[in-house]
């Protein structure tokens, strides 16, 4: 009677990006890994190097919700937040201010992540190239808590998800690493997506 909603990550070229249900990437969490490559695979390839100075970045990721099964009238009021504390010294995960357009008929807000594979991703806001639809960014673990969640907009008809296959817009996320970060595979952090359903 209720909807089943999944978290998707989308990667690939702008003309035909590929969306993957994060629960299908591997059997157990983590479901999303920041890396210096534009793919959704959870592996140890293409880690983000710790720079001697300045910042190295992951390739940015497009993340959205999709109704995949069930019976429901509508889904709306989508929120995103973290429970902290974050990945630690020298590591920041940013979320783009805008939620670019993604719906069941369009990936218009998608802009493929770019950079040097295995070394550094392009910054999603400042500089060129950047994400075409992101003008600013916030710290995921500082700015988006249960008390201050981020609103994830919907560009389906009536600004609601009311059919199987319909989606939210994207949130765009990117990890920054500076010289004070410690090496190694980081412990996972928890992200929460919340939505209302009737």
């Amino acid at each position, binding site marked *: *009677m*209720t909807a089943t*909603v999944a*978290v998707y990550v989308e990667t690939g070229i702008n003309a035909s990006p590929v969306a993957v249900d*994060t629960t299908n990437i591997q059997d*157990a*969490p*983590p*479901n*999303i890994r920041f890396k210096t490559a534009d793919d959704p695979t959870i592996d140890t390839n293409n880690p983000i190097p710790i720079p001697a100075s300045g910042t190295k970045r992951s390739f940015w990721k497009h993340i959205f*919700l999709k109704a995949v099964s069930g*019976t*429901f*009238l509508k889904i*709306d*009021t989508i*929120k995103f*937040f973290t429970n902290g504390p974050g990945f630690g010294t020298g590591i920041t995960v940013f979320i783009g*201010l805008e939620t670019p357009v993604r719906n069941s008929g369009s990936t218009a807000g998608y802009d493929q992540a770019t950079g040097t594979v295995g070394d550094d991703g392009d910054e999603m806001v400042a500089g060129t190239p950047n994400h075409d639809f992101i003008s*600013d960014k916030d710290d995921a673990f500082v700015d988006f808590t*249960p*008390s*201050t*969640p*981020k*609103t994830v*907009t919907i560009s389906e008809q*009536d*600004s609601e998800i009311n059919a199987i296959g319909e989606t939210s817009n994207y949130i765009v996320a990117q990890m920054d690493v500076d010289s004070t970060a410690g090496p190694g595979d980081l*412990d*996972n*952090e*928890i*992200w*929460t*997506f*919340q*939505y*209302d*359903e*009737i």
Partner: protein
Amino acid sequence: MGITDTAKWRAVYNDGTFLYELDPSGGKPNSFGDIDFDRIVAFEIVNEKDIAVCRVNLGNGKRLIFTRRNQMVTGQLFNTEGGGRVPIPMKHHSRIIILGWQKTVNGVNTKAIFYLLADGRIEMDDEWKTDAVHYRVNTPGLLPEPELIPTKIVDKKKPQEKVYSGSNDSAFKNKK
């Protein structure tokens, strides 16, 4: 599975009949959109034994508040004591049922809101808050909507977070 995972709704009509989300005697499931709001006098949440555990009496200008608020969690917590990495059992999907009514009295939107939490606790309040759990619900209104009056902007950097009063939420959505 907690009560918020298994509870269903039923609409109580003015002739004493019910419209069940899932009729205990069988039959097709009904959508929230199937409810005849011209005839409804109460809205109930029923448990698996068909016992109403929450009831909202409507009428006298009250507009229903109802949603299932779902939280999906990505990631995994680990216990790293002793040098190992043992996954900590955690629920990756939980649900809150939000139920109540709102009514405009002398131009003021008054509310009674129940939060039935996943662990069985119940909270009651008379106003929405801005945190994730207690955020405003967009339930279709039962009556014509009053004029929308913007009151404040929570954060200029996030214009979609505008807060309005004197409205039900369908009106709010149309103004965004």
